[in-house]
């Protein structure tokens, strides 16, 4: 029988099935960070249990780490304790960790693929909803809670019910200046933040095959914002070549053996999905969110919607509340909205390709005698990992940013969720390449607009949202 990519991943990991279909699933890779793991390690200690397979774990502190003056350590004692607790737990339980001072340190969802730790055909979990990112490699990857972190540490398995399978097929060619982030936001705008609930989403079609691995990671990263725990893309030669030579990938002859296995992680031709959504890539415009949920999104030449035109009563009150929180009036053109801060980073958009796209806008600005606009208090670029930072500096991207007035920082989650010192103050408005525009996400009272890296850089230079295609033409 024809099987989807998701079916193949599921079937390859079933250890045991209960009569009601609840299955015990084997977990190949477990990424760990400082925020959702301390209580899990505490649980292991209390029960006198040891990790089942230490080689399956890679740990890194990312949420609390400072992005400036790292050599001075973490100023906030509560944050510092959490990071030190991770260090101690990894030492005590014999787990591999890239500590804050390691040049390989970075956002957990950037370093897993970068190290070749994430591979096709695997199950990958982490106590973090954006674990869906790793599905870009033809893996089954999803976020779990802390009880499950402890469960995976103790047993290498998880209890799961199989999800339904959804195909999001994007065919055609993206226009210049339109990116994977815009596809993700356009999909969420179409199906809503609960549109993928209960589903594993496979992204397919010619526009997806044309994306780089970085672009596929951006897209799968945002699957959770559509409600889908897992997003995934079928394996192709780009997947295989990305992994070749990476430190944790198989080497030599074993790499070829693994690659042959990896290439089987594609959906069979003609297989049926429980749901299908089709989009034409050529129709997708650069996107900007206007509200407090990623589904509240319009193309950059659109306007803030009028709650009077909402499809139902619950939505109308949601939109009204969102406009009040965001300090926006209905029908305002998105381009007329000024920004106070700009954040380029996060597990969604902090990889080398993202930084190149943003740096190209910064370079163009400098060539035109422009720099970060006077009304923008802070425009910060936070690379996803120490290795991304090194590569960006080798390419001169850091100088392109700083010459235009952007700040060039050290890697971490930073202002995506503001657990470290990087945050919005009440009422501040931010063009952000992160993944969530929830109330208070970037700081209490902060107002977040989600955009692509190039769109964020353009907003920094003009001081308000602009269509990056016009800036770069």
């Amino acid at each position, binding site marked *: 029988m024809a099987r989807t990519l998701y079916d193949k991943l599921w079937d390859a990991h079933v250890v045991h099935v209960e009569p009601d279909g609840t299955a015990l699933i084997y977990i190949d890779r477990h990424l760990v960070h400082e925020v959702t793991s301390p209580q899990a390690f505490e649980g292991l200690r209390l*029960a006198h249990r040891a990790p089942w397979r230490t080689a399956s774990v890679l740990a890194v502190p990312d949420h609390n780490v400072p992005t400036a003056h790292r050599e001075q350590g973490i100023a906030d004692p509560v944050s510092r304790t959490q990071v030190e607790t991770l260090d101690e737990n990894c030492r005590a339980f014999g787990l591999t960790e890239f500590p804050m001072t390691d040049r390989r340190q970075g956002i957990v969802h950037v370093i897993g693929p970068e190290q070749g730790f994430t591979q096709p055909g695997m199950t990958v979990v982490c106590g973090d909803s954006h674990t869906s990112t790793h599905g870009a490699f033809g893996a089954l990857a999803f976020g779990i*809670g802390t009880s499950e972190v402890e469960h995976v540490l103790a047993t290498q398995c998880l209890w799961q019910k199989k999800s339904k399978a959804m195909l999001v097929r994007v065919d055609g060619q993206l226009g210049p200046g339109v990116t994977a982030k815009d596809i993700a936001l356009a999909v969420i705008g179409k199906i809503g933040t609960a549109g993928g609930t209960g589903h594993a989403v496979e992204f397919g079609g010619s526009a997806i095959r044309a994306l780089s691995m970085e672009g596929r990671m951006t897209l799968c990263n945002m699957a959770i914002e559509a409600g889908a725990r897992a997003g995934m893309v079928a394996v192709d030669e780009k997947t295989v070549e990305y992994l070749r030579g990476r430190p944790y990938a198989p080497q030599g002859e074993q790499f070829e053996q693994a690659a042959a296995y990896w290439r089987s992680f594609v959906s069979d031709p003609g297989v049926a999905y429980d749901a299908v959504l089709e989009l034409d890539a050529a129709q997708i415009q650069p996107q900007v969110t206007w509200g407090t949920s990623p589904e509240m999104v319009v193309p950059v030449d659109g306007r803030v919607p009028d709650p009077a035109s909402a499809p139902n009563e619950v939505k109308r009150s949601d939109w009204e509340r969102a406009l009040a929180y965001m300090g926006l009036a209905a029908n305002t053109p998105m381009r007329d909205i000024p920004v106070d801060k700009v954040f380029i980073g996060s597990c969604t958009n902090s990889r080398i390709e993202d930084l190149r796209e943003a740096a190209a806008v910064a370079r163009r600005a400098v060539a035109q005698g422009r720099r970060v606009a006077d009304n923008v208090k802070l425009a910060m670029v936070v690379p996803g990992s120490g290795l991304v930072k090194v590569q960006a500096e080798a390419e001169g991207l850091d100088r392109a940013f700083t010459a235009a007035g952007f700040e060039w920082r050290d890697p971490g989650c930073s202002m995506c969720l503001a657990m470290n010192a990087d945050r919005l103050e009440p009422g501040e408005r931010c063009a952000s390449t992160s993944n*969530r525009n929830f109330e*208070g*996400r970037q700081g209490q009272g902060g107002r977040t607009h989600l955009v692509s890296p190039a769109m964020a850089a353009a907003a920094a230079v003009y001081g308000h949202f602009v269509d990056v295609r016009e800036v770069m033409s």
Partner: protein
Amino acid sequence: MKPFTRLDGLVAPLDRANVDTDAIIPKQFLKSIKRSGFGPNAFDEWRYLDRGEPGKPNHDRPLNPDFVLNQARYQGASVLLARENFGCGSSREHAPWALEDYGFRVIIAPSFADIFFNNCFKNGILPIVLPAETVDRLFRETAAVEGYALTVDLAGQTLTTPTGDVIPFEVDPERKHRLLNGLDDIGITLQYVDKVRAYEARRKGEAPWLFA
């Protein structure tokens, strides 16, 4: 885990869709390395007028009088009535920890986000999915009747309203069994150690690099 069998609980309504886990427990409280004590900071940004910080005492902070859970009539509520996609966003288990510590044991909504839904069952909280019309009706009745309470019977899979109406609900048999008995997942899984080892042995043959 604390078992859940039956509850007679005061109902509190939270009438907004897409309530995310950042709203349920803001990020600054996630710096704690404990799994208890989050209740006083549940819904912190909606509940108080000032900014909450870990370690800051909460008893003398200014309450937001417009936030529904601050109303006198909902004090002591153990059933939370919510709208669609409740618990979306971050996977933080601190969200169910905060709700449980606040006093909620049952959450009723037309839909839940997957990770949050799953996390509830690990913490003795019963999330119940009901059709949108039924949830609408419960919102209306809760608003109309002060002291509106529901009897939740997990074994029988029913809610009973104050007027004696019985509303059935669905729950996965395996989840129900574990919640009713307060069973620890890890303890159950360790009964299958032999199967896990057999699986590993087979996979080591097919794909040895997975175990490198």
